[in-house]
């Protein structure tokens, strides 16, 4: 079922936490609300769930306006960050609670509970209480409780944040797999950009109560709409250099004390002197030797080995540093003088004032 959010605003007293949120989640897609803590993503999810009232704006499920519907009338399911299992009920009763309060016949409840427990591999835990389960097992029960009712919309509020790193990776793949099997629209909240990138069909990047960009993982990574998105998505984070727009012959160019870089030809006429920020990902930079032609020269400050790659931090200019990602077998040592090549095709330019992407062409 589609979920559309139309000019949603939310205030708690004088504090406005969401501003004019316009989003449309297509049916059966895995959509992630991604942003740092306090960006309003959880509040937005709770409004979709009906746990928080909308200050202004319209929420629709399909064609139906749900603003004033109670949570139980929305046919949604939600997985909470804390799992929120009913402590006094066994796993079996936790899983079946939603069906019991909806007066489903007992036989059907048993069938549904058994089916979900088998899928999630928790069928041996059915008679235990939540206190007797490990974190990963509780996580599965919370997931099972949401799955058992076959909801139209599946809401998840940072469900993996309480798990250890290894389990998180496993669960990421499983959640993605369950989403495909469930045929429901999934709205997933996280502050972890890696989770968002690996699991989502669509990502809404949020900051300060405003949706900064809404697009596929490839779009938000490859064509960030503004400085915030560019800096938030991608690990290691993008390098930024502040400078001005200049011209070199008939071509526009980026100019700063550390770097002068000719840009794509025939662009940005009539706006030289404007303050802009150049962003380039560590993966898009090339490290070369001291003698080879390069865009910037600098001294290696630190080298971090990640396994298959190395991150090389290079000091350029007075106090600036740039991160360059190279293959692990690249020979580079601290205090080497190196050159860094910047490919003009792989840079992102942003307006220094507004932070918005600066379209050169």
């Amino acid at each position, binding site marked *: 079922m589609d979920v559309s959010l139309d000019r949603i605003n939310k205030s708690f007293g004088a504090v406005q936490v969401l501003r004019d949120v316009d989003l449309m989640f297509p049916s059966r897609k895995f959509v992630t609300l991604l942003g740092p803590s306090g960006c309003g993503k959880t509040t937005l999810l709770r409004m979709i*769930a*009906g*746990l928080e009232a909308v200050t202004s704006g319209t929420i629709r499920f399909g064609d139906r306006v749900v603003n004033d519907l*109670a*949570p*139980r009338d929305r046919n*949604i*399911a*939600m997985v*909470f*960050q*804390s799992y*929120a*299992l*009913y*402590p*006094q*009920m066994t796993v079996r009763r936790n899983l079946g*609670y*939603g069906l019991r*309060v*909806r007066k489903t016949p007992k036989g059907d409840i048993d069938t549904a509970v058994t089916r979900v427990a088998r899928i999630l591999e928790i069928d041996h835990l059915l008679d235990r209480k939540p206190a007797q389960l490990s974190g990963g097992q509780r996580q599965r029960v919370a997931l099972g*409780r949401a799955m058992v*009712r076959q909801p139209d919309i599946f809401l998840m509020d940072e469900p993996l944040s309480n798990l250890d790193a290894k389990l998180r990776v496993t669960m990421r793949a499983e959640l993605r797999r369950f989403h495909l099997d469930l045929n429901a629209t999934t709205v997933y909240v996280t502050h972890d950009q890696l989770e968002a990138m690996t699991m989502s069909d669509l990502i809404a990047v949020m900051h300060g109560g405003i949706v900064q960009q809404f697009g596929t993982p490839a779009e938000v990574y490859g064509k960030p709409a503004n400085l915030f998105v560019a800096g938030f998505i991608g690990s290691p984070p993008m390098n930024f250099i502040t400078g001005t727009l200049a011209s070199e012959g008939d071509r526009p160019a980026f100019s700063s004390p550390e770097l002068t870089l000719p840009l794509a030809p025939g662009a940005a006429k009539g706006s030289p002197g404007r303050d802009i920020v150049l962003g380039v990902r560590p993966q898009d930079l090339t490290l070369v030797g001291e003698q080879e032609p390069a865009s910037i020269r600098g001294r290696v400050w630190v080298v971090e080995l990640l396994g298959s790659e190395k991150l090389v931090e290079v000091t350029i200019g007075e106090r600036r540093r740039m991160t360059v990602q190279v293959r692990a077998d690249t020979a580079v040592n601290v205090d080497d003088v190196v050159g860094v090549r910047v490919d003009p095709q792989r840079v992102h330019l942003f307006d220094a004032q507004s932070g918005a992407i600066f379209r050169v062409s």
Partner: protein
Amino acid sequence: MSKSEFWTLTRRLASYAVLCAVTFVVCFPLVWALSTSLKPKSEIFATPPTLIPRTVTLENYEALLTGRPQYFQSAGQQVSSGTTPAQFFTRWFVNSMIVTLGSTLISITVSTLAAYSLTRFRYWGRNVIPYFSLLGYMVPSIIFVFPLFLVMVQLDLTDSLLSLVLGYVCITLPFCMWLMWAFMRSIPIEIEEAALIDGASRVQVFTQVVLPTALPGIIAASIFSMIVSWNDYLFGRVFLNSLDNLTLTVGVMLFFEGTHVDWGLLMAASVLMTLPMAILFMALQRHLVAGFGAGAVKG
């Protein structure tokens, strides 16, 4: 045996000795009461005294439970025309039960709802009310007795069990509310939200999710309230008059007011009085610890 082993052993023996002594001091009156209640009159004052009765008799219990008048006559004003306290024992027992259960029921119902409101709804004073209520509990109950008695006179409730029920609610409610408040605060709101999404109504959320989760707290508060009401003497003494309406604690005192004290009967009454609370305690002590524990951490 090495030196450290010797000291470990000594320490352990010493602590057991202390524990045994304390246990003896606490248990001896109970054991003595039980022993005396099972002795025939001739043996109660025997020298040397016997801890284990030579002859076991149930005549004291029989007298109390069947209400058979004993041979002693009362000189007290309230006990006249051939009546003896033993005749009223079962009546008083029932009165105590009514008052205890009634006041506990009201206290628990009100304090649970109040605690839920204080922890879940937003209004002015929601954070200070529990502490003020605890303060109310710290005032000795004797201070409340006479003002409350005057209120009961106004309400025309004196010498009724209802007056006692209301009186006990007044002294148990503040602490029960504080305890329930501390307990409710530890229940995460997410489980209620999860139930709402699962399809439960507000009432179902409260009865099926909140109450069962709060059960240890409810049990702890109930035990507290029952002990206070069951054991109270002061309120009963002031509020009640007629023999028919007395509670056990006040009634049993009448055993002293005769020309001589029938110790066997008195001890049997004491044992029977202790029994309900002892059974309750043993059955629910696990929950009691859990309940007070939760309060201690969160309060």
